[in-house]
Structures are given as structure tokens and as C-alpha cells.
């Protein structure tokens, strides 16, 4: 066998080497282009716009530094918006993820009509949010809406779900959890089916109960999946807008106004480009912080065997 040194490589071999070296960049290029054009550049543009006042009264942008941000943070209604958004995320994410894991564990065995159950839980994901929101809007009707009719069986009187400042956000949270749990369940099912059997057999031999096996084996092994679905759930939470638009319009009295909906309203109804850009920046920063923290925290504990 002769050793090839640089001085004796043929032209063909050199082209092959350069080709192979360049290949990753070529493959990455379309994605990088898309992300730059549709994510990076608009983010920079929005950061720029947030430093100017531009609305229906001030057509030509006026430089204002961080005034847009200070005005937002000192406005009581924006506090409501942030509060609602964080409450929504803090409630829907753990419940959805936990329910999804439980459902996946239950539906991971073989029994009759298994496919039907999986379909039933996954079906909400397939519905567009607008359709789901319209259906649930009428399900929440006081008196004869399906939800209230169902609750009457337990002696609970009819509630005005979307008209009560206390219940409206809860109503939206129920819809949000219903909509996304099936999606996460599928990921957990896939994860569960990829787990090695030997570990569980060993645990069984050692006398571990099912709960112990789940807690000490399944959950840590599924950390990668948990990281993924948690990120998706948080992003879904921050991106909630369709159901608010259809069901409550942000009311009653800003009880269901959330960040992205308020942003949309500020830009497209009030035509306030400066404020809307400032809100966009806040949204991007919050999501960046969360994703980074989540990644660091869960990466430490995840095992990608």
C-alpha cells in the first residue's frame, strides 16, 4: 500500500477533497439563508424600529431611544398583558407535558382499540386553532353550551366562561392544554418505544415498583424529549393569538390579553409601529432567555444514548 502525500494527489482527488469539505456548507446554505432573511434580519429591523416613535399621529419616525420601552413597562395594561402571558405559560406547560407523559405511558401497551385512543388524543392537534377556538367558543356558551351542560351533571351551575374576568383566562388555558397534549404524547410514545428493555427487566428483578421504575428510569431517559416538548409548549404559549382573537378579543377588560395578541392589536389596529416593535423585542428576548436556560438545564441531565 502506498501512502498518498499531498504532492502526489491527483486533480480528481483534490476536487473530491474540496467537494467533501465544502459539502456541509452547501447543505446548510438554504437553511441559513432562510433563517437570515426571515428571522435574523426582521429581528434586527424590529430592534431598530423600536427606538423610534411612529404611529397614527407621528408619521415620520422620530428617534426616541428607549422611551417606547419605558412607556410600556410603566403602563398598567401592559403589566396585565405580561402577567396573563406568564400565568398562561406557567400553567399550561407543566400540565400539558405531564399529561402527555402519563397518556403516553398508558397508551404504550397493546390493548383493544389502542389506535382509536391514540387518534382521539391526537386529533385536536390536527384541527387548526381557529376552528378549535370557534368550536370551543360555542361549547363555553352559558346555559346550553356543552361544557355547562356537562358540569350540571355534577351539580355545578352554569358559568359564563368567556364573559367572566376570573374564568376567561382559565377557559383559554383549558383549550390550550387540550389542543397540544396529544402532540406531545406522540413524541413521548416515540421516545418510550426507543427505550432499551434490559434496564426495565433489571429493575424488575431488583424489585422496583412501576412508579419507581418510571421515576428513576423512564423520566431521566426521556429528558431529551421533555426538553423538546417543553420548548414547544412555551413557544405555543407565547404565540397564542388565534384563540384570543376568536373567543375574547383580549377581554373582558384585558383579562385575556396576551403578549402576541396585544402586539398584533398595537400594530394592525392602532398602527403604532414603535410600540409594537418594542413589544416584539421584549418577546424575542424573553423567548431567547427561556430557550437558553432550558437548554442548559436539561442538557446537563439528558442522556442521548
Amino acid at each position, binding site marked *: 500500500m502506498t501512502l498518498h502525500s499531498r504532492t502526489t494527489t491527483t486533480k480528481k482527488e483534490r476536487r473530491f477533497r474540496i467537494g467533501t469539505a465544502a459539502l456541509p456548507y452547501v447543505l446548510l446554505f438554504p437553511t441559513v439563508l432562510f433563517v437570515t432573511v426571515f428571522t435574523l434580519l426582521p429581528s434586527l429591523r424590529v430592534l431598530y424600529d423600536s427606538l423610534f416613535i411612529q*404611529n*397614527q*399621529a*407621528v408619521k415620520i419616525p422620530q428617534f426616541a431611544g428607549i422611551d417606547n420601552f419605558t412607556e410600556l413597562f410603566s403602563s398598567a*395594561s401592559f403589566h396585565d398583558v405580561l402577567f396573563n402571558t406568564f400565568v398562561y405559560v406557567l400553567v399550561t406547560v407543566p400540565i400539558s407535558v405531564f399529561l402527555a407523559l402519563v397518556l403516553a405511558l398508558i397508551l404504550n401497551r397493546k390493548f383493544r382499540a389502542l389506535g382509536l385512543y391514540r387518534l382521539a388524543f391526537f386529533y385536536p392537534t390536527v384541527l387548526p386553532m381557529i376552528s378549535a377556538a370557534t368550536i370551543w*367558543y360555542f361549547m363555553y*356558551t*352559558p*346555559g*346550553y353550551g356543552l361544557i355547562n351542560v356537562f358540569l350540571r351533571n355534577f351539580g355545578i*351551575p*352554569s358559568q*359564563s366562561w*368567556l*364573559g*367572566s*374576568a376570573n374564568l376567561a383566562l382559565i377557559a383559554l388555558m383549558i383549550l390550550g392544554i387540550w389542543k397540544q397534549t396529544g402532540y406531545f404524547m406522540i413524541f413521548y410514545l416515540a421516545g418510550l418505544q426507543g427505550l432499551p428493555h434490559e434496564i426495565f427487566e433489571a429493575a424488575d428483578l431488583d424489585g422496583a415498583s412501576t412508579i419507581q421504575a418510571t421515576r428513576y428510569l423512564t423520566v431521566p431517559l426521556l429528558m431529551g424529549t421533555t426538553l423538546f416538548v417543553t420548548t414547544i409548549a412555551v413557544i405555543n404559549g407565547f404565540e397564542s393569538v388565534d384563540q384570543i382573537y376568536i373567543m*375574547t*378579543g383580549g*377581554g*373582558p*377588560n*384585558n383579562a385575556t390579553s396576551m403578549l402576541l395578541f396585544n402586539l398584533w*392589536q398595537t400594530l*394592525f*389596529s*392602532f*398602527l403604532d409601529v414603535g410600540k409594537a416593535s418594542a413589544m416584539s423585542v421584549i418577546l424575542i428576548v424573553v423567548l431567547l432567555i427561556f430557550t437558553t436556560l432550558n437548554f442548559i438545564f436539561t442538557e446537563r441531565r439528558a442522556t442521548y444514548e
Partner: protein
Amino acid sequence: MSRKIFAFLVLALLLSAVAACAPAATPTPSNVTLTFYYPVAVAGPITQVIDGYIQKFQAANPNIKVNAVLSGGYPDTLTKIQTTIKGGGTPPDVAVLLSTDLYSLVDSDAVQPLDDFVKAAGGDSFTSDFFPAYLANSNYQGHIWSLPFQRSTPVLYYNKDLFKAAGLDPAKPPTNYQEMVDAAKKLTKADGSQWGIEISSDGIPYWLFQSFVIGNGTNVVGKAANKVTFNDPQVAAALQDFADLGSKHKVMPADVLLWANMPNDFVNGKAAMIWHSSGSLTNILKQAKFDVGVSYTVGEKGFGAATGGGNIYMLKGIPAANQAAAWKFIQFMTSTDIQADWSINTGYIPGRQSAMSSQAMKDYIAKTPQAAVAPAGLKYAGAELAAHNNAQIQKALGDAVQSVLTGKASAADALKAAQTQADQILAPFKD
């Protein structure tokens, strides 16, 4: 084999893309194509009716083609148009938008004044046929900007059968707030299965609230586009009246009620009286299995209501040939016959007074006497809330209404906060 199929599919895709890009047959110079955006805000086969009008117009004007585009609701239509203009695109030629969108549209330089067209069509003799209450929203800075197309007022629908059962005279609906409360008390069942009155406060809460205000002898807005009066003691009294229906008199559920649920509650007998748009009349009559009465909304001093609905506008920046064609189309859509037909098919009030005396309308009123009530009530109507940055102003008042109805604030405090907010929003505008 699969490679060949793949190549064939790609080729087919490319060819169809090319075909789609191919230019349409070049029209002859005298042909004009208009784009018409219209929202739908009431139930019914609206697109079919509009398409019928388009066909009639095109038959009478063979060199004008109209592209009618259903553009969602009023806010969607406004958003679409403003976004197009902002992005440097071509706006439609004609659009139906809220009469109260006027100031926002003029601020964004989106609409064309119609002065010259109106003058050529007869000036005052042309405009005098329109109901003055409706034409009021078309004037700003000395120009006329729009014509009434699908206008409405809130009306009080009441269940005559339930009235009789409660010992009330079905021919004598309430004429002021106190009478409405008294009647509602007799019509409310303690177990919550039947409420005397239901008035919604979601969506555009200010609109029905204005009935209480105008019926109290005042209004939240005057002729100026940069001034609103929310924190007036009579306005606060009107808001308290609204809230008292649920919290004090217990004739209405004490929450924010949803606009879309009101007609259903009414036809199901869950609410003996509701306040809703006159434009819902046709739909309610179709579904109700009882005798439906129509009367006027009330405040403490008597009848009162804000006008509502949409006007037809011509957008700015369209070519001159399109402008002439667009004016012909606007005249057609606001003509007596079309307005009468539109009213019969939807329940909107015709913009023209002569439409009320047309044969078609007379025949319709003979069959459906309820349809005559709303137009006759225009004499009790006041101006709808309209100002610069209208969406934000309306939201400020709407939030105040909702906060009082949900018990989170007192009427005086909520309105004071709304006034402060509105003053801040309106400060930069000069008139």
C-alpha cells in the same frame, strides 16, 4: 421508473407555474376592472346578494368589470387595506368600511374626497335624500368622504309571547330605562332559566353602551374628531344604569355577555328582551318561533341609540379611469332600488329615505311590519363614537365598560381613567 415519474411531476409543476404567470388577454383601453372589498357583519347569504348586484351593474355598464372580494369583518377589511397601503401595494378601488373609520382613513391618506363627484351628481339635491343621521359621519374638514351603504342602529327585540305570559302588554314595549327594568323584573325567573333582558358587552362594548348615554340626553363625542367626553356625570350615571341591570336589579347575568350568543338566547327563550343590531332582524325572524316585537333602546330620559354600520368609500391613488368607474359603482350601490333590496335581504336600514317609499319596501313592510321600526327610530339616534386613532379610543371606553360590568371598578373611576387615556391619545391631533 420512479425517476421518470419524478421528472414528469417537476415538469408539470413548472409548466403550470409558467401558465399561471402568463399575462391575461390585454384588455381594450376603455375597459376598467374595479376591485371591491366588502365585509360581512350580519348572518345570511350575503355574498350571493352582492354577486347579484355586481352582475346587474356589469350588465348596465359593459365596459366595467367588478372584482368583489369578501374581506372578513370590518376590522379585517380596514387592516387589509391599511397594510396594503403601508406596504406600498395597490389598494382596492372601492371598499365598505365603518363610517367611524373616517378619521383613521384620512389620517393615513387612504381615501379620496367625493366632493367633485357629488357636485356633478347634483350637490345638495343628491345628498338630501340620504338620512341626515347617517350622512353626519361622512363629513370632515369641509369634504364629503363616503356615502351610507349598510347602516344600522341597535334595537330592542322583545318576545311578545313571554310579555303576555308575564301580564305585560305586548303592544307597549318600555319607553325608558325604568320601564325596561320594571318589565324585565316581571320577565326574570329566579332559577336563571329566563332573564328579563340581555345586553352584550364584548366585541365593541361602547356601541350598546351609547344607547344608555344618548337616552340620558348626552353623548360621549361631539363634532370634533379630537375630543371625547367620557368622564361626564351623566355618562357615569348611564354606565351605572348598565351595570345595575346585573348587579342591583338582577334582571341580567352579571358578567360580560357575548354578542354572538344574544340572538340564540333570544330565540331559545332564555332572554325575553335583547339589544342587538337592526341588521340581525331577518335572521332572528327566521329562527324565532314566537311573535317578535321590535322597539328602541332606552336610557333614563327615553329612547336613544348610536348609529352604526358601514359606508362605501373610494380609495386614493387609483387611476383616473378607475375613479370615474368607481363613482358609477358607488352611485349604483347607494341607489334607491339597491338600498331597498339590500335592506330587505339583510335587515340593514337603507341609507336613502326614498328607499323607504319604494314599492319593494312597502310590500316587505306589509309582510314584516317589524322592519319599519328601526328606520323610524333614526330621530332618536345620536352620533357613534368616532375620533382619531379610533380603535384605541373605542378600546379605552370599552375597557371601562367591561371593568364596571365585571365589578372591578366604579363607573366614575373607570370613566376617569378612560378619559385620561383618550386625552393622551388625542393630544397630538389638531382637529
